[in-house]
């Protein structure tokens, strides 16, 4: 019988040079501190010797263009490449030094996909989509020079309206928990992105965050109070710059009613950096 043996969520632009350019010395210091905590989370994850790592993240219009934008998509196949971008700027440049290809846990990905369709989740699938910084920045920060275990990348459409609801994401997480429980594998799961940044996806508002809303989310996560999280609306997340919390909602559904422990929370004008880990039974 399988088990979720690790669960963590974290910001996903993890690059001191990026924050130096965007926020100066304070940005470099804070993201370095956040990355230190994420690396420690990675050590704890590696100690579980899990068979696979599910990574729930969003696409930044890199993997999917306007020919199709899936609400929820499971990456299947045997390996996944990192996104390649010529003359990469900003968050895309974070990928440049990373390994080109990563193994997938094909059987777990197929089980999440196939059992999902059987149980009412009309998931999209992809054999070819590459993964961007939302997946690889946390994975590589967690693992450092250690080998990365087989991944199961899952995309949530966090940005292109209409998005899936927080409740739907939570319920999809419950589905993942059921699949893992019925499997022979021990599995880690991470969700990436956030916390508050880029409210309303408005360029003039880059540099604003909603720390009050972040603290409300953290309060509920720490206490395992998941009903108020399920009742959040996409509109609230858009207004407060919490778009990527949809990814976190999948994880929260997967581990509910587990309580979260904050490993790092830092208020930075551009983004509130966070690293959170759940205490699992």
């Amino acid at each position: 019988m399988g088990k979720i043996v690790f669960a963590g969520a974290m910001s996903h632009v993890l690059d001191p040079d990026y924050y130096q350019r965007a926020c100066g010395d304070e940005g470099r210091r804070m993201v370095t501190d956040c990355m230190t905590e994420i690396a420690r989370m990675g050590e704890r994850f590696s100690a579980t010797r899990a068979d696979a790592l599910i990574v729930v993240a969003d696409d930044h219009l890199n993997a999917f263009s306007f020919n199709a934008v899936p609400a929820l998509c499971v990456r299947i196949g045997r390996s996944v490449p990192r996104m390649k971008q010529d003359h990469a700027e900003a968050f895309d440049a974070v990928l440049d030094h990373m390994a080109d290809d990563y193994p997938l846990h094909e059987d777990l990905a197929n089980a999440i996909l196939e059992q999902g369709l059987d149980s009412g989740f009309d998931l999209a699938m992809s054999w070819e989509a590459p993964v961007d910084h939302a997946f690889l920045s946390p994975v590589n920060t967690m693992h450092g020079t250690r080998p990365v275990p087989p991944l199961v990348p899952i995309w949530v459409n966090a940005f292109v309206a209409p998005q899936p609801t927080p409740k739907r994401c939570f319920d999809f997480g419950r589905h993942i928990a059921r699949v893992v429980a019925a499997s022979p594998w021990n599995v880690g799961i991470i969700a990436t992105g956030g916390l508050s940044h880029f409210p309303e996806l408005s360029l003039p508002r880059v540099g604003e965050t909603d720390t009050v809303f972040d603290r409300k989310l953290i309060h509920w996560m720490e206490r395992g109070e998941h009903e108020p999280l399920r009742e959040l609306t996409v509109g609230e997340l858009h207004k407060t710059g919490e778009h990527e919390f949809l990814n976190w909602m999948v994880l929260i559904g997967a581990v509910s009613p587990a309580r979260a422990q904050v490993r790092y929370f830092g208020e930075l004008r551009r983004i509130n950096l966070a690293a959170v880990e759940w205490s699992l039974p």
Partner: protein
Amino acid sequence: MSRYAVNSTLYRLKKDPEFRARFQADAAAALASVDLTEAERAAFVNHDMRRINELGGYLHLVMSVPGLAAH
């Protein structure tokens, strides 16, 4: 309707180096066959990413088109 044209143009500028080079050499000519409103076309020709964002261009695209990105 126009949101698609704005974003598909941004996406091409990001992912298609040849189109990007033509745009940087002569933006108006590169966009001649693209179905944009006059306001959208002017924003692109002026490399005005803030205006493009106001017109529906997704933030992560306006922040990551090589050589044109707003930060």
